[in-house]
């Protein structure tokens, strides 16, 4: 066989639209997933049963069901139970964000628990409230330890965005499929998609290494 990328270059516009769609859903899910994850993680860490039990249930439900099934469920089943329509973007964002929240909640909980109790003592002895101690003393140290795991989460979210194609959301894989079916060139189309993903993700990983080095200044 012969590789023929000419048909890919002819469809650059379609791929650009797909890349924009991927970046959009990635940004939404990164912000929603990691911030909701912090809230759930704090709930998992709470001593109050009314926070701990719902947070734990959330984590178990979303950790133990496939993201693809969640996306399909939000798209097809939820609108039957609730009186509103689901756009592909909304369904996919919900599925990916909630799944990421469940996984990152465990990262946050582990990171917070790994900080020595002496740090809490030091903060409280100065007269800090729980929230102040968490924000000023515990989280900055915990984040440093969690950074590699959170970066992995971010990369995972980026790649999970391809699952949005299952509900016909316009992103890179969806556009790749489209190009492949119009031009009968699946090999080139999917290779192009893979290369584009690598080009996006590689700098992201490099940036995380840079962040880790910066955070190690105090050692």
């Amino acid at each position: 066989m012969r590789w023929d990328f000419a048909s890919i270059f002819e469809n650059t516009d379609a791929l650009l639209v797909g890349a924009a769609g991927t970046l959009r859903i990635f940004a939404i899910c990164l912000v929603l997933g990691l911030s909701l994850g912090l809230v759930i993680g704090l709930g998992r860490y709470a001593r109050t049963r009314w926070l701990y039990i719902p947070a734990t249930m959330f984590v178990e439900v979303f950790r133990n069901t496939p993201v693809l099934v969640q996306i399909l469920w939000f798209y097809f089943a939820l609108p039957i139970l609730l009186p509103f329509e689901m756009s592909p973007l909304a369904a996919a964002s919900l599925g990916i964000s909630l799944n990421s929240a469940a996984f990152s909640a465990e990262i946050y909980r582990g990171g917070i628990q790994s900080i020595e109790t002496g740090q809490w003592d030091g903060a409280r002895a100065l007269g800090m409230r729980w929230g102040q101690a968490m924000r000023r003393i515990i989280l900055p140290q915990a984040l440093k330890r969690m950074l590699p795991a959170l970066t992995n989460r971010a990369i995972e979210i980026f790649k999970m965005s391809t699952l949005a194609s299952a509900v016909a959301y316009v992103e890179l894989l969806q556009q790749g499929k489209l190009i492949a079916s119009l031009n009968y060139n699946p090999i080139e189309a999917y290779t192009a998609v893979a290369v584009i993903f690598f080009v996006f993700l590689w700098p992201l990983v490099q940036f995380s290494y840079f962040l880790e080095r910066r955070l190690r200044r105090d050692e």
Partner: protein
Amino acid sequence: MTILSVTGLTKRFGATDVLRGIDLDVARGERIAILGASGSGKSTLLRCLNFMERPGGGTIALDGEVLGREGRTAERIYRESELIQVRQRVGMVFQQFNLFPHMTAIGNVMEGLRTVRGMAKHEAEARARKELARVGLADKADTYPAHLSGGQKQRVAIARALAMDPEMLLFDEPTSALDPELVGEVLAVILALAEEGRTMLLVTHELGFAYHVATRIIFLADGAIHEQGTPDEVLKNPKKERTRAFLASHKQFSF
């Protein structure tokens, strides 16, 4: 004038009674050294005084004001805002320093002023420099704890506590985690504070230091005050057998 008044203080951890009814009045300017074998409850007593541990029973009064309100059990109910006030008035220095490793020395000293007191940055910085100079570490202001010796870390921790203008200082074995050659510099700082007439409670194993710095010695055994008095009374002429045994075991290598 009594600054702190403790009545019938008890504390349990699981099935163990760590404190069995402590009565203690601390006058302004008093310096009390608390001695006792490990497990006698001396650290727990100290940690109850600024509510790092919740007292199981009994009352604690600061400036004549009894803290908390009665609940359904012996344990009183404390409001978080009340305890936050107490902790600002009663400073604490820990055995393991508990410095914040992600902040420089001056950042550590400024933290309470900025976050708890809401002080402006330049004001907090000026105050923190003053406190660091007091403990002889003006030149280490921008150093992170990881690059400080144990003695230096403990002096930063003392500066951090002092910056909050506490009416009383609690020292929980401040030199126990230090290499022997670093103990002196920390004790010198504490001695200087004593000479300023500060009110302090000190849990320590340094009997010689306790003798010089304290106005009163309390010997704790099994969660109760076993014997107390002036340093001369307790350390030179102990009346109780257990006090004598404790002192003997701490002196066996001195000559």
